[in-house]
Structure formats: structure tokens, C-alpha cells
């Protein structure tokens, strides 16, 4: 469904590339994690995949059509992106924020009708945020905000959902909420997902495929079980780690043991 072919990006001509010749393919229904340390180019790559940032070299295709041939509005009906943090300078309510997800489906002067409201309410329900639809967005906790922004992305009725470090600033409870929510959306609503994270255990628990990124380059990609090894963890983070299957959770877990330089 989404294919990137030797995609690069640099913010300035002379500066080192932030993303350096990355190739990848995302099949429908997949749940893919992009893993890498801070500054490895995850966010830049995700923005390019969503079409909000144009690569300086290489090409990305969605449904076999280059992203540059899609209009912004057309693309936003198919691909939604959840940014790392959303800050609202005005007092929008939660429902206001979620209804904004309908933007690409409406004409310039069209107002949301009952059908749009129903879609927004369903998005609220499937993210467990119905209870606070009338509350001001700014008064929510970090985890609640993140779920509301995911609801807003779902209101776009996308086939592909891109998430930039969806659990980065959340406490353990909210991390688990978001993790279970994403797993359920992928399973029940068949939303294809690509998420960036530096949380190895989240990626191991949630993602069936991983793409490991360091200094803008892919150092490994493939099924989680094959890619997540002590060697790749050391290459990514400079940390000696124990990687083993958790006896109860059933997925791989990573325990850092020592720093290597």
C-alpha cells in the first residue's frame, strides 16, 4: 500500500542527511514500528510517509501512485498522522478537535452534518474518550489528549495511520492504554499502522514488523522476532542488553545491562 524507494531528506543542502536512502514497503493490515534513538530521523521519515514533507531525493508511492501526484485533501482521506504532541492555543472542546478530522471530507464552505457527527462519536467511542467530549481539550491529561488526537485521526476514516512516538510522554498506565487501543484498532478496524518509538518494549509488544533507524539509515528491517536482537540493540543505542521472550506476556522484552562506547 505504501512504498518508499531510496528516500532521503536534508534540511539544508550542505548539512548531513536526516534521512538517508531509506527504502521500505508497508502492506495492508500491518503494524510496523520505526525504532531508533533520538535524532535518528524517525519523525522526518514519518512526515515524508504522510506526504506533509517532500523528500529531497527518492520517491514514495501510495497505492502505486507517487505522493506528489496526490492533493493534500485527497491524501488526508486515506492517511492520517498523529503528531507527538498537540497543543491547542484556543479553548476547543474534545468534540471540536475530533470533528476537525472530517476536514478532508468536506468542501470549503460545507459544515459537518449528522453523518460526520456519527463518525466523530464512533471515533470517540473506539478510543474510550466519549465521556469527555464536551470538556475543553486543554484541560485533559497527556494520555487523554493523545487518545483524543488518535480519535481525531480516526475521524478522517484513514486506511493508514501514522503515529509519531504515541507514548513518549505518558506514564505507565496511559502507555498501556494507548498500546492496547492501537492493537485493538489494528485488529478490529483493520487500520494499517506505522508508529515511531524509542521504546523497545512497546515496539516488541505491539509491532509485527520493525524498521531500525540510526543516523537516518536503515540498519535492519523485518519481522520483530528476527530483527530485535542483542546485536541490533547494541548497534542502535550503544547498550548491551538481554533480549528474551517474556514468560507471561509472550513477546520479546529488552533489559539494558551495560553501556558500551
Amino acid at each position, binding site marked *: 500500500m505504501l512504498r518508499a524507494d531510496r528516500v532521503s531528506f536534508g534540511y539544508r543542502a550542505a548539512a548531513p542527511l536526516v534521512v538517508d536512502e531509506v527504502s521500505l514497503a508497508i502492506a495492508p493490515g500491518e503494524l510496523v514500528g520505526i525504532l531508533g534513538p533520538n535524532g535518528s530521523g524517525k519523525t522526518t521519515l514519518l512526515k515524508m510517509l504522510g506526504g506533509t514533507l517532500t523528500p529531497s531525493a527518492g520517491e514514495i508511492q501510495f497505492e502505486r501512485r507517487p505522493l506528489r501526484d496526490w492533493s493534500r485533501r485527497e491524501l488526508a482521506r486515506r492517511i492520517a*498522522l498523529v*503528531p507527538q504532541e498537540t497543543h491547542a*492555543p484556543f479553548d476547543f472542546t474534545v468534540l*471540536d478537535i475530533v470533528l476537525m478530522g472530517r476536514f478532508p471530507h*468536506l468542501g470549503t464552505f460545507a*459544515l*459537518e452534518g449528522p453523518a460526520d457527527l456519527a463518525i466523530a462519536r464512533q471515533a470517540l467511542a473506539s478510543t474510550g474518550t466519549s465521556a469527555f467530549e464536551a470538556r475543553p481539550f486543554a484541560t485533559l491529561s497527556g494520555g487523554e489528549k493523545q487518545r483524543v488526537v488518535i480519535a481525531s485521526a480516526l475521524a478522517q476514516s484513514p486506511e493508514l495511520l501514522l503515529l509519531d512516538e504515541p507514548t513518549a510522554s505518558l506514564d505507565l498506565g496511559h502507555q498501556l492504554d494507548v498500546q492496547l487501543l492501537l492493537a485493538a484498532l489494528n485488529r478490529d478496524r483493520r487500520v494499517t499502522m506505522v508508529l515511531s518509538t524509542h521504546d523497545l518494549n512497546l515496539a516488541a509488544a505491539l509491532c509485527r514488523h520493525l524498521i531500525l533507524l540510526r543516523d537516518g539509515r536503515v540498519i535492519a528491517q523485518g519481522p520483530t522476532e528476527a530483527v530485535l536482537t542483542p546485536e541490533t540493540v547494541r548497534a542502535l543505542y550503544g547498550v548491551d542488553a538481554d533480549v528474551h521472550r517474556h514468560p507471561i506476556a509472550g513477546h520479546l522484552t529488552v533489559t539494558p545491562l551495560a553501556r558500551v562506547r
Partner: protein
Amino acid sequence: MPPIRTRLALTLTGFSALLAVALVAGPLIGSTHISLGRVFDRSIAFADNTDAQIFFVARLPRVLAAALVGASLAAAGVVFQALLRNPLATPDTLGVSSGAALGAMLAITFHVDFAVAGVASIPLASFAGSVGALGIVYALASARRRGLSTIVLLLAGVTMTAFFQALILFTQYLADFADTFRTVRWLMGTLDVGSFAPILAALPIVLVAFAMLATLPRSLDLISLGADAAAARGVNVLAAERLALAGASLATGAAVSLAGPVGFIGLVVPHLVRLVVGSDHRLVLPASALFGAAFLIACDAVARTVWSSGELPVGIVTALIGGPFFLWLLVRK
């Protein structure tokens, strides 16, 4: 909460009614008492009907100027606040207003005196100043990267405002006593336009600006959440930002060239409107334009009547209301 359709209809009806009341009540208020019945009494010839003359000739141009300026500045304030993602932004923030003031100062001080299609040189120079200021700020904000940098826009605007203020003082230093008095008076902001001609000259610019802004409210909702978030929801961010900047600056330039820098309307009005209609720009933008018009008519009515020995410049009244209001907003956050 009722659906957006209902809220929009209620908002437009309510604020239009308020403006209609202001438009009729505005010209009735003043140092000389006139009666509405006599103003519209068709049995008296216009030449003999002093009430009608005061209503239509002396006061109506001023009231209509207030409406046009108030609507322009309030709408521009809404747009700049969304564009800069900062609820405390005003039409002055980007230097458009100070650029317009500098243009007027230069025309007054150096006695640039001509007219194009009935429009005098001072408003023309002032409008040119606003366009020039926008050009400089825009070039700075788009120079360093793809897309507009909001933070550069904001900092460049604040710096340009300070720089223009210095040039204004420099111009005043060069001016003789009489010209300095005229420039100071102009800087106070006044709606004493004298006739309908200046209003008719500014009207087309304001209408073009409003037509540009009319396509934008939903994009502004999304842009206020961040450029990347807006782009991901399908907004063509750069095109929307350019249109918003051009529309809001045109409206500001037209308003300042008509009345001088009337401060705080672009800050006070949108905030009062948001208290009533919420934050959805599809409601806030039209409601602010309508309420801005009514609000400035009211401020001008105060300016015309509060001082027994004459009329205050309306800019002094709006600043006296707006300053404390701004501080209240800061503390409330």
C-alpha cells in the same frame, strides 16, 4: 451542544441584529439631541430638516467608518491570532499597522500632496506603508526554509514595529511644529472622515480582504493546532497561510489608512466573541467582524460625548479600554 449549522445561524442572526442596532443608534447619539422620528420624517424637506442633516451628513459617515474599521481590525485580529498560534496577537503584531503609520507620517511631514481617483495622499501613503511592512516581514519569514516560520514572522513583526516607531520619531523630529501636531493627532486614531468618499475608497479593499478570509475559517482551526497537524488533516498550509496573511494585512492597511492606528480592537473583540460563541473560527471570524463594527461604533459614541468641550480621538478610548483588558487576559491565563 447544538450542531454547527444551528450555532452558525444563531451567531450570524444575533451579531447582525446587534450591528443593526448600533448603526441606527450611533448617529442618534451626540452633543446635539436629534429624534429618529424627525430624521425619517418625509414631510420635511431635507434642506430644512436639521435632524436629518446631522444624522446623514455629520454623523453617518463617521459611524460607517467606525463599522468598516472595527470589522476590519477585529477580523484581522482573529486571523493573526490563529496564524501565529498566539491568542495575544493583534493586527499591530506584524508591523503592518506601524508601517501604515510611517507612510502617513512621511506624507504629512514632507507635504506629499496629491490625489488618485479622489483618494488623498495620506491614506494612500499609509496603505503603501502597510503593504511595504508586510512585504519585508513576509520575505524574512519565508527566507530561511520551506514554508513560513511562525516564530520568525512574530519576531520580525515585533522588531519591525519597534524600527518603524523609531523612524516615526525621527520623521517627527524633522517636522516643524504644525506638522508634528498633525502627525500626533493622526497617530491618536480618529474616525472624523468628513465625508463618504474615504469610506468608499477603503470599502473595495476591505471587501476583497474579507472574500479572501471567508474561505479560511476551518483551515485556521487546524493551523492553530500546528502546521504539521493541519497538513496531515488535508490543509494546504502554505497557501492558507499566505491567503490569511494577505487578507488580514489588506484589511488592517485599509483600516489604518482610513482612521489611523486604532488600537486594541483586534485583541478585545475576538476574545469577547470567543466567550460567547466558543473557539470555532467559522463562528469567531464572522461574529468578530460584526461585533467589531458594533463595538467601535459604541466606542466612538463614547468618544464623541464623554468630553463636554469636544470630541476625543476614538483611539484614546479604545486604548483606555483595551490596555487593562489585555492585562486581565494575561493574568487570567
